[in-house]
């Protein structure tokens, strides 16, 4: 699945297994990196848990990029990524997207309190996606979790959560800011979740131990970390 698009002769290929939430940001970065270096970058988006599992099973992936440091840690402990190669390159932010606006504005919890308009609240699966766990923490600290529990549905990733809301099948969703920044939430109402309501989501990248191009992969990871890219929090 990774090596489907065969690179041209002589041009090395770096396969980046990335969390879906990071894909839009990484794609822009990968394009500029490809231009600077003579390399081809292939993005392999998916749930962090699935990609971590694939790396453990020996999938031909060179770089692991995740919004959940726990997975990076698990891979480092198992010797599947180089511990010394781990870099943090940004901090993910959680937003509330909704199909409707709340009159008079209010804070980020307003759409979640307009009970008559609310049938389903979509979050990423907290067991497998860091934004899911963050969403659960945020709703819990806002005192909404128990009341909303019957309305909560899980998406496999924030990308699917956003798709649920965009198609109107869910009324409200909690997703990564990066998806909104990449223009994927057009037509939806967006509100930033209070950052104190959840633990920050550290975005990390690491070189896979089995990579055939460890130096090139490391250059990619380092460049990513030094870039104040779109994945980084927008100063307010």
């Amino acid at each position, binding site marked *: 699945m990774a090596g489907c698009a065969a690179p041209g002769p002589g041009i090395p290929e770096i396969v980046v297994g990335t969390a879906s939430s990071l894909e839009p940001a990484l794609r822009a970065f990968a394009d500029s990196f490809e231009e600077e270096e003579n390399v081809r970058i292939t993005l392999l988006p998916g*749930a962090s*848990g*699935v990609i*971590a*599992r694939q790396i*453990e099973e020996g999938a031909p992936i060179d770089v692991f990029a995740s919004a959940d440091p726990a997975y990076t840690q*698990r891979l480092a402990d198992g010797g599947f990524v180089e511990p010394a190669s781990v870099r943090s390159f940004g901090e993910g932010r959680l937003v509330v997207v909704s199909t409707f606006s709340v009159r008079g504005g209010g804070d980020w919890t307003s759409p979640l309190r307009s009970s008559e308009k609310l*049938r*389903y609240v*979509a979050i990423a*699966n907290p*067991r*497998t996606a860091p934004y899911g766990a963050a969403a659960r923490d945020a709703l819990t600290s806002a005192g909404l979790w128990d009341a909303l529990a019957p309305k*909560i*549905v*899980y*998406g*496999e990733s924030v990308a699917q959560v956003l798709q*649920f809301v965009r*198609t*109107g*099948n*869910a009324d409200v969703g909690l997703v990564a800011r990066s998806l909104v920044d990449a223009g994927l939430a057009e037509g939806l109402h967006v509100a930033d979740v209070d950052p104190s309501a959840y633990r920050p989501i550290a975005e990390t990248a690491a070189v896979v131990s089995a990579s055939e191009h460890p130096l090139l992969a490391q250059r990619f990871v380092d460049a990513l970390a030094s870039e104040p890219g779109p994945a980084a929090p927008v100063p307010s």
Partner: protein
Amino acid sequence: MDWDALRLSLQVGLTATAFSVVVGVPLAWWIARLRPGWRETASALVLVPMVLPPTVLGYYLLQAVGRRSFIGSALEDAFGFSFVFDWTGAVLAAFVVSLPFLVRTVQAGFESVDRAYEEAARTLGRGELSIFMTVAVPLAWRSVLAGVALAFGRAVGEFGATLMIAGNVPGRTRTMSIAIYEAVQTGRASEAQILALTLTLATLGLLIAVGLAARKGVPSWR
């Protein structure tokens, strides 16, 4: 052990299979008796859900019964009902993917039954429904059971389209296949193993029961 997921899988699988039988067996009979040409066309149409990727099917289902769709919004306005994120959505997905398996198998059974039996029944005063129940189904009985078994197996195993239309809601739409996927994904290998084994044994048990029923004989409705 996620008993909810097992209960839900069986509930979804059996309900979807029941719908497949009610819709699929008469449909198979209808197709089996179409004129050549029309028959091949109808067979191909029925096969479509079998060859489409489950995600495409899930996408179509969302288009068809999603909350913004014509059907979906009408159902929600009238009854407050929605397939999306509901176990009935999982049933719908499982029904759509299992129907072709049932229809193809049962259709082949009907096609192998000599038309003379049906014609004899007609000259003896029986209408189409009566012929269907007393002649067609009993004479294609083994194929019907084989179709039921295949449809059930496919319904219980349904994953992709279910995930898209019903999502992953613990206790409501998290079936065994989804629970297994999640367990593998989060590295809970032993849990995945137990779930997979349980699902295998439960399905196997049902298939053996169907096989024994087939051996026991043909219904002699008159």
